[in-house]
């Protein structure tokens, strides 16, 4: 496909040739130059044109296309609202997914309810699709809890902050699924930076050796805080799978249809007992790493601008409009729904209660523990000694 080929080449050039940071990589280019030009699976171009791919055909209904648009719009709005709430001091921190909506919505829409997801800490779009109430995602960032939802009610595990850890949990879970003879799949989300962690390599090893029904979904958003993807790997990430003995594919992470199609193929493969697969969604972190980060220290504006032209939502909207699949009433309705979601999130965060002091001692052990009981009692007694003065 010429369209894909062009896209692949231009993205490759971009990642290898911008700015100072690439110059060190350039000097030592020999290691990478031998590898094949990365194939980038694309089904919807940045101009909103549908293109075909021999391996990943997909024929979504107009209803499904509108659904993907709605998911991405609501997720983006939720994310923007959370960023604003952090700026207003309501959240301690926020990790924005801006720019990664297609990768998350596309991949998550490929899953069945009984599939299980192990996210990192930026998977707000995946959480949305899994049916996790978005307000639950904010407790951790506000500092009132370390999780905020029951992982089993939506088969969406807790956010994991230690980089890469969850890929092993996903693999183990998938090993259990296989032992049970179930035909569901497990998806582990992680970043390009995480791909350097030993845990991720060990997850690949276990998944391959035990033929575990797990899909490794790497959102390569080009940056791990200040470090560019080429600081993590000298070969395209998806190519690493081959060394472990399972297939890897790179998909245009800003193309929701391609992400949907490729993830669908990967989970179906896993479900049918063919083992793991690595999907590298080639995308971009449009904002800062988190609200604590200052990307101007290490990243040039032009880079972001180039990626804005590939905006995942815009291209789907162009398609919807061009093919007359969405009228003004629909688009307006989504906007209204976004406003309502933003308001709901704002209200929920502002009224989110602080945890009770004694929550410190809750759930430390499932079966209880004498030392915790003792410390709880001592601390309660200590607090009670203040009560006359600080009666609330």
């Amino acid at each position, binding site marked *: 496909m010429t369209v894909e080929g062009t896209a692949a080449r231009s993205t490759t050039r971009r990642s290898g040739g911008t700015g100072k*940071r690439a110059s*060190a990589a350039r000097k030592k280019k020999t290691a990478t130059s031998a590898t094949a030009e990365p194939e980038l699976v694309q089904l919807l171009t940045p101009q909103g044109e549908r293109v075909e791919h021999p391996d990943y055909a997909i024929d979504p209904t107009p209803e499904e296309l509108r659904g993907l648009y709605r998911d991405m719009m609501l997720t983006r709005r939720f994310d923007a609202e959370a960023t604003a709430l952090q700026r207003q001091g309501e959240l*301690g*921190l926020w990790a924005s997914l801006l720019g990664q909506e297609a990768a998350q919505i596309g991949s998550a829409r490929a899953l069945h309810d009984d599939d299980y997801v192990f996210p990192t800490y930026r998977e707000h779009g995946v959480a949305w699709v899994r049916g996790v109430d978005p307000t639950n995602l904010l*407790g*951790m*960032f*506000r*500092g*009132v*809890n*370390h999780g905020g939802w029951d992982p089993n009610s939506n088969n969406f595990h807790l956010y994991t*902050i*230690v*980089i*890469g850890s969850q890929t092993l949990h996903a693999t183990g879970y998938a090993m259990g699924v296989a032992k049970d003879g179930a035909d569901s799949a497990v998806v582990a989300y992680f970043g390009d*930076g*995480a791909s*350097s*962690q*030993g*845990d991720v390599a060990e997850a690949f090893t276990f998944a391959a050796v035990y033929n575990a029904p797990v899909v490794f979904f790497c959102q390569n958003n080009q940056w*791990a*805080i*200040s*470090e560019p993807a080429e*600081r*993590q*790997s000298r070969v395209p990430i998806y190519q690493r799978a081959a060394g472990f003995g399972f297939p890897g594919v790179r998909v245009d992470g800003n193309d929701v249809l391609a992400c949907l199609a490729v993830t669908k193929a990967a989970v179906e493969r896993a479900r049918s007992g063919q083992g793991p697969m690595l999907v590298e969604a080639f995308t971009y972190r449009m904002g800062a790493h988190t609200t*604590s*980060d*200052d990307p101007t*220290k*290490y990243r040039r504006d032009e880079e972001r601008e180039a990626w804005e032209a590939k905006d995942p939502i815009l291209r789907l909207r162009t398609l919807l409009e061009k093919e007359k699949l969405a009228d003004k009433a629909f688009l307006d309705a989504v906007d209204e729904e976004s406003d309502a979601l933003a308001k709901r999130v704002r209200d929920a965060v502002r009224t989110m209660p*602080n*945890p009770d*002091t004694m*929550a*410190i*001692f809750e759930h*430390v052990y499932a079966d209880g*523990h004498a*030392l*915790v009981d003792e*410390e709880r009692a001592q*601390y309660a007694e*200590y607090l009670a*000694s*203040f009560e006359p003065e600080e009666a609330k």
Partner: protein
Amino acid sequence: MAATKMPLAKALNESLRKAMEDNPKVLVMGEDVGKLGGVFRITDGLQKDFGEDRVIDTPLAESGIIGTAIGLALRGYRPVAEIQFDGFVFPAYDQIVTQLAKMHARALGKVKVPVVIRIPYAGGIGAVEHHSESPEALFAHVAGLKCVSPSNSSDAYWMMQQAIESDDPVIFFEPKRRYWDKGEVDTAAIPGPLHTARVARQGGDLTLAAYGPMVKTCLEAATAAADEGRSLEVVDLRSMSPIDFDTLQRSVEKTGRLVVVHEAPVFLGTGSEIAARITERCFYHLEAPVLRVGGFHAPYPPARLEDEYLPGLDRVLDAVDRALAY
């Protein structure tokens, strides 16, 4: 006069700069330490001045960072590796404990592994999970490692250079919530030895022992206690492995009472060891059992509860009251 006022973070930065200027074998490595200058800016500007070969942005892999630092040290370099936050040292824990700590002994003293591991640690900055922990006891327990923590700018400046000069592996715990506190740094001073404790405030009624972030809290507690007519001595341990028990013993022999304060959980923590040793050394001088104030046997709580979890003035003074009541 070479003394200037600067925040603790800046003192660390100046110290690293000085160490790199003095010794071309000193390397700085870690995640985001280069262009970004580290998430706390401790390595700010170093890559610009010393280049990418000496200030090395590493892949996101802690076991890799420490494992390769060991190799670099075996080759004659003096790597200063940054672990971005306390809770992220554990992927490297295996390398630190099974390899770094033991290599000198295993080689019958024939090889040295002068690796410094910088860890911004402890709480009080309202961070999310894994960004506020105090794992020092887990390292102090391991023979072959030395563990230190500065509590002020001057110590930050001098202890960092001394840690880098040390031929032993040093885990350098940086009290992140004190990064922005300003203090005098005399760059021409002659510093005391790295592992000595310092009497930070003289007093006669009771000794408060602390290190890192809790020293400031203890000094504030001593000030508050003085208003109530109590004279507290504050000992800044500065080093958690080894611990300068002689200085502490002298203080306790004078005051007869000891309260140890740290953020880490009390159970099997640094304070437990201090309580045991001081009880052995000062049994006949003690007027009260050695008390400990610290974290609970519970995961570090979410940010909105950390003020409850962390020892503050009230909890320190409560322990002081209890010790004085004996």
